[in-house]
């Protein structure tokens, strides 16, 4: 090699090094910006719990199985087929043999094992993935492409868990090379996109994996597929709409419902409202505190709430009204709960009088009677006995709410609606989940707002089992516990559905929650983006299907 060519080579390397400072600039077009709505504390799907992380990472990883978003059916993913033993305790997966990770590592049963080891190792402190595996006790690698998962008892939600990004299969080479804190910056999966860089608080960049040929049945490559996606953070709701209109972002979720009318007249923008499976926006009612310890009072509160007005005013009709503890697109949703509590102020007032609230003060607020007797309709758990301090005072409920998801506005509308039946509400808005948990532990609330998302109805367990981690209703009932536990263990879908129907009925009979509206994620995207679709969990886009209509910029 001559000296000159050596110099040229050196220069070229130098230039390349300069360019790599902005590695994402040289990635293939078309390139889009995807707006994320909050900054997760961590981006590691095995360890962190945020839903936001799945928006990019759903397409970096594949999962053993997938759920078809249209039918909800489980379809092959990294596992080409699987077999569940008759007793529901072992799941045997036959793995695909043609899959390689983005770093060239071949995909096999040992790779799955390495992932399971990482998730189940208690030292790693997995916030979500470990719990999704339920009573998993171990696995057996039968051969290079067969693995068997072993459970201590039947666990019906397992396939749903395995279809989610939190149990996405990462490259064992990378897992060995990086530790828990650094792996999130070097994530490698088998999915249709590979991760280029993640700069916390600024951006996360993905680019298409050209080798990808093992996607599930509903992954279809569009004409002119989007090649590079830069995720940026748009935490402030009003700015999302502005960024979308100005072209700063090409697709973003959680647009304010009121902005829909600004966008609907814009031919360059399309709205994609996506119903989210899981729990509706709901208030959990404290069954151990006066006066919501009375079933009659709880029923009166639901009857006195005009949910149609809330859905119309705050959610601009983008959300269906919720009637029970699950949204209508959740598995095993029981539609009959819709009949339990219509909006009926007269009935609400009659119920309140029946338990002794008859006197009103000058402002029209009901007075707590001094000698209140337990009403006949009450159940064993808690009685409507006013504490010494509240007797003779106006009836005032305490409502604890987080600041997100338009919940403060909903709370204020409810406050006004309930004043019409003579109930005063004090709203305590806290700053975040941590303070919400503190307030829940303190127990000095009548209502508290929290809801989780997920396609499988088993998410009811943590909220409604007597010993559930989030049993903020403080309700304890053998009957409800039995329905929920049996449903979790039942592998026959029809019988499982029946248990959940009974559980939903029981929850509403006991008026444990005040459901408001089914959650709908209002996404907006430029009309040039094609194939915009979301997975069975609702939150996560199928980036593989995203295409771009070329035109002058």
């Amino acid at each position, binding site marked *: 090699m001559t000296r000159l060519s050596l110099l040229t080579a050196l220069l070229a390397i130098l230039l390349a090094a300069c360019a790599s400072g902005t590695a994402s600039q040289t990635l293939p077009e078309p390139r889009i910006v995807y707006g994320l709505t909050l900054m997760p504390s961590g981006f590691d799907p095995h360890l962190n719990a945020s839903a936001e992380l799945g928006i990019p990472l759903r397409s970096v990883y594949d999962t053993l199985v997938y759920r078809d978003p249209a039918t909800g059916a489980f379809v092959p993913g990294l596992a080409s087929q699987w077999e569940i033993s008759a007793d529901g305790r072992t799941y045997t997966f036959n793995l695909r043999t043609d899959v390689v990770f983005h770093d060239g590592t071949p995909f096999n049963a040992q790779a799955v094992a390495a992932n399971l080891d990482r998730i189940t190792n208690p030292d790693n402190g997995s916030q979500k993935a470990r719990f999704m595996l339920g009573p998993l006790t171990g696995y057996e690698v039968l051969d290079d492409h067969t693995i068997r998962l072993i459970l201590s008892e039947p666990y019906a939600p397992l396939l749903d868990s395995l279809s989610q990004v939190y149990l996405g299969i990462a490259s064992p080479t990378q897992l060995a090379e990086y530790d828990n804190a650094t792996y999130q910056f070097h994530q490698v999966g088998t999915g249709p996109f590979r991760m280029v860089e993640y700069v916390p608080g600024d951006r996360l960049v993905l680019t298409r994996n050209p080798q990808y040929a093992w996607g599930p049945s509903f992954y279809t490559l569009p004409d002119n597929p989007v090649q590079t996606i830069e995720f940026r953070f748009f935490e402030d*709701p*009003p700015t999302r709409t502005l960024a979308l209109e100005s072209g700063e972002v090409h697709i973003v979720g959680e647009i*304010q419902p*009121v*902005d829909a*009318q*600004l966008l609907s007249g814009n031919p360059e923008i399309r709205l994609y409202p996506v119903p989210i499976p899981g729990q509706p926006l709901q208030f959990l009612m404290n069954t151990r505190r006066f006066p919501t310890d009375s079933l009659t009072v709880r029923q009166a509160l639901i009857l006195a709430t*005009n949910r149609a*007005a*809330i859905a*119309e*005013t*705050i959610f601009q009709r983008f959300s269906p009204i919720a009637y029970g503890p699950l949204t209508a697109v959740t598995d095993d949703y029981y539609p009959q709960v819709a009949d339990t509590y219509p909006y009926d102020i007269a009935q609400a007032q009659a119920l309140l009088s029946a338990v002794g609230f008859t006197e009103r003060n000058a402002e029209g607020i009901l007075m707590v009677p001094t000698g209140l007797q337990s009403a006949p309709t009450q159940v064993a758990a808690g009685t409507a006995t006013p504490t010494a301090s509240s007797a003779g005072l106006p009836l005032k409920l305490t409502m604890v709410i987080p*600041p997100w998801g338009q919940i*403060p*506005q909903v*709370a*204020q*509308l409810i*406050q*006004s*609606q309930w*004043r019409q039946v003579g109930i005063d509400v*004090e*709203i*305590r*808005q*806290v*700053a975040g989940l941590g*303070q919400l948990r503190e307030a829940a532990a303190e127990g000095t609330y009548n209502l508290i707002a929290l809801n989780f998302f997920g396609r499988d109805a088993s998410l009811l367990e943590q909220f409604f089992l007597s010993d559930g981690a989030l049993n903020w209703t403080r309700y304890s009932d053998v009957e409800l516990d039995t329905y929920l536990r049996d449903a979790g263990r039942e592998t026959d879908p029809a019988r499982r559905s029946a248990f959940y129907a009974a559980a939903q009925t029981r929850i509403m009979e006991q008026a444990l929650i005040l459901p408001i509206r089914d959650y709908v994620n209002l996404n907006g995207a430029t009309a040039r983006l094609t194939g915009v679709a979301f997975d069975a969990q609702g939150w996560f886009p199928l980036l593989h299907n995203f295409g771009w209509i070329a035109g002058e910029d």
Partner: protein
Amino acid sequence: MRIPLPDLIGSAQRQPRPFAVPVMILSIVVVITLAAPLLNLPDPRTAVAEAHLRPPSLEHPFGTDALGRDVLSRTLWGGQQTLLVALLGAGIAILPGLVLGVMAGYNQGWTDRLLMAGMDILLAFPNLLLGLATIALIGPGRFSIALAVGLAGLPAYARVARAAVLMVRSAPYIDAAHAIGVPPGQILLFHILPNIRESLFSFAGVSLSWAILNGAALAFLGFGGDPAIPDWGAMLNEGRAVFRLAPWIALPPGIAITLTIFAANRLADAWQDTAGHRI
């Protein structure tokens, strides 16, 4: 030939800025907000879902907000809330700040060094950050905001009070008072404080405008506790979310905050000028 020097000290010699304008603005703001209960306005907390986002009309001169509440009523009632929190906050900043600053300035020595080191540490943090830290510790609510605003303003006020005491402490008439055996308490009360009152008043005005601003900022961020209770800062945030559809929601509280702070600052200037004029 002599070239006239620029009038570098002119500001101290020109006519003091008048009290009349800021006093007038502040009285109007206070009187109107205090009169809110007498004006027969719609209840500021009652949401009327059907009537949301209505533009200004005869029925609702300032329109309605996203929950159908009367914006005029919320602005007036919100003024009570905002001003009360600001006054409380300014009080929490000024009274202990004055005591600490005067103690440090008058005693000097270790008391001074210790107190001022503490104040300097607090001053190193931006005002609002200190407020946010306080809220994080004691939780949201109106009185939390007042306390947060007060604690954030306290170190600055203590610093100013100390500096003012130091200015007159070494004056001959103080030495004279010492010499004839006037007790320290009397020297402070009758000889020092009356001579620094303009500085103290002036900075109290500044503290008040900070308290309004910081209080509104914390309410804007949603730390006011019950969101139904109107407050200018919280209203600004509510209005901001729908500003393009309904600009009438954010404008009244925005204008009210601006006017009140302007008036409080002008009042501070006027006091400052009387001090300069007298000396």
